[in-house]
């Protein structure tokens, strides 16, 4: 048996989730773990992939793979499946990973199981698996019959881990239908480096309890003071108080800060699955029985409109004393 792991990269820059997928692939115990990289720009990634256990790196070369395109990548992966005949094809369950696997599954007429957390391969072509539903608030146990088994690993299901082997690179030209050019990126806007909700070390979040768009001003102040970002729940976006780019949750951004200060947020499933990767959660809520309070490690029972400014004032007071 063999497992082929899709290398997610942006014109040669490796997406770290790929290394998780390599670690996940080793847990399958499905023969050699090899990597498949679409586009010649990925060739230099071979040594890093080998550091993380890829015993061979298969590079697919085609002019339509010079930049990302969902159809070109889907056909590129399907061509590599035909060439390598793996038993398992695995990617990380990122936007790109799930998209490319869905294309490859459609092209090869095979099933696809997204965001798996555990997979047992009973025999070649047959697996029992556990995957995430509802953004991770429910597990589905399923059986899959397919050649190959096309699976994505839920992000953070396992940690990336070094497992060095000698790098081996095999580059081959692949056939991709010329019409796949119709969905290649035509233009892009690069984001200026800086703090984002997804990478902020501290997130100050507000929910329905904030009450209005203006009500977020004290949360903004505290976020600035702590070098963090402001987040919000879906109720807030639906009310038009904040832009959807600030929404934390299943259909918003998944955050993973050191500290998440959740203010006036009840903690419905929709929000919780976006916040649960925070290392420490401090809930501020008038209701001691709120779901967010019972799930948080720490809580302040009280009105956020009084509590948040008091926290900001205390941070400033200590800083001025320290100076």
């Amino acid at each position, binding site marked *: 048996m063999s497992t082929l792991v899709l290398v997610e990269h942006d014109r040669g820059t490796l997406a770290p989730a790929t290394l998780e997928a390599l670690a996940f692939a080793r847990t399958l115990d499905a023969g050699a773990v090899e990597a498949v990289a679409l586009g010649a720009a990925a060739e230099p990634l071979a040594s890093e992939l080998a550091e993380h256990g890829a015993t061979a790196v298969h590079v697919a070369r085609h002019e339509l793979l010079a930049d990302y395109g*969902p159809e070109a990548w889907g056909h590129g992966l399907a061509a590599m499946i035909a060439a390598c005949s793996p038993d398992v094809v695995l990617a990380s369950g990122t936007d790109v990973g799930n998209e490319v696997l869905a294309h490859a*599954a459609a092209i090869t007429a095979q*099933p696809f199981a997204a965001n798996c957390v555990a997979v047992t391969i009973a025999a070649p072509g047959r697996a029992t698996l556990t995957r995430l539903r509802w953004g991770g608030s429910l597990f589905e146990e399923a059986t899959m019959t397919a050649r190959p088994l096309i699976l994505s690993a839920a992000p953070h299901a396992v940690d990336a881990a070094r497992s060095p082997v000698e790098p081996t690179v095999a580059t081959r030209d692949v056939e991709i239908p010329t019409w796949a050019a119709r969905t290649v990126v035509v*233009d892009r806007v690069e984001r200026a480096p800086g703090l984002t909700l997804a990478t902020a070390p501290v997130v100050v979040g507000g929910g329905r309890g904030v009450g209005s768009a203006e009500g977020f001003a004290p949360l903004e102040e505290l976020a600035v003071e702590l070098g963090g970002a402001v987040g919000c729940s879906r109720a807030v976006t639906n009310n038009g108080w904040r832009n959807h780019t600030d929404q934390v949750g299943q259909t918003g951004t998944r955050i993973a800060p050191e500290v998440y200060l959740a203010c006036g947020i009840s903690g419905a*499933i929709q929000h919780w699955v976006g916040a649960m990767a925070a290392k420490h959660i401090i809930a501020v809520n008038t209701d001691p029985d709120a779901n967010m309070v019972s799930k948080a*490690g720490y809580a*302040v029972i009280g009105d956020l409109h009084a509590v948040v400014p008091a926290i900001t004032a205390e941070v400033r007071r200590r800083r001025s004393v320290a100076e």
Partner: protein
Amino acid sequence: MRVLVCIKRVPAPGARINVSADGLAVDTAFLGFTTSPHEECAVEAAVQLVEDHGGTATVLTVGPPDAEEQLRYAASVGAAAAVLVPADGDVDPQRTAAAIVAAIGRLEGRDGPFDLVLFGNESADSCGFQVGVRVAHAVGRPVVNGAKALAVDGAVARVERPSEAGLDRYALRLPAVVGVKEGINLPRYPTLKGRLASKKLTVETLDVLDAAPAGGLTTQRLRPPAEQGGSSTVILGHGPDAAPAVVDLLDKLGVLG
């Protein structure tokens, strides 16, 4: 232009999701139902396109007869036609896609081609990330997922989607398929006039599921994850007096800088 939006009726869970006694479904005894969030935005996107360019927005769902509630809701915010493909219980992604392809074939054979077919990026409940892509391949049209902006410019659909590095832009020649993400717009609320119109709408039924073969992924059971946290929450205090305890904690956790 003619736009088709494929939507899904899903439970609206609160703080936790309970599973039915047989482990095969979400226990919805005490839950309401809604349209999966990405798809609610897809409906709004379709209605806006029709407002700008003329034409009609049609909604389609593969689901139980009760899904008529979500079809009528879509009509109340501007969809002009609604199609139900009746299904009992959970339908696997390959079979769902095959049924939608058959339904599109019937509708286009009778009324002419759809310029755009919109899906949600993934459904809120089963999160399969594939039905729209499968349909696009079956009907031979270009598809891009994750759309956070969508505009039609002549015969081209312009799609923007966020990436790790910033924002990617695509230009898809119509007819095309697009997977929409929440945040592309803020869905409107129904007007009284819209509600009245939606009550009068005839929902068309297309029995195309039986002919769609089952796929290779079969659900065995659902189970909730082990409970985390629980009663172990440390209460730092009550009201603004708790501020020093909060700041002590922030300091201890190393985020005071």
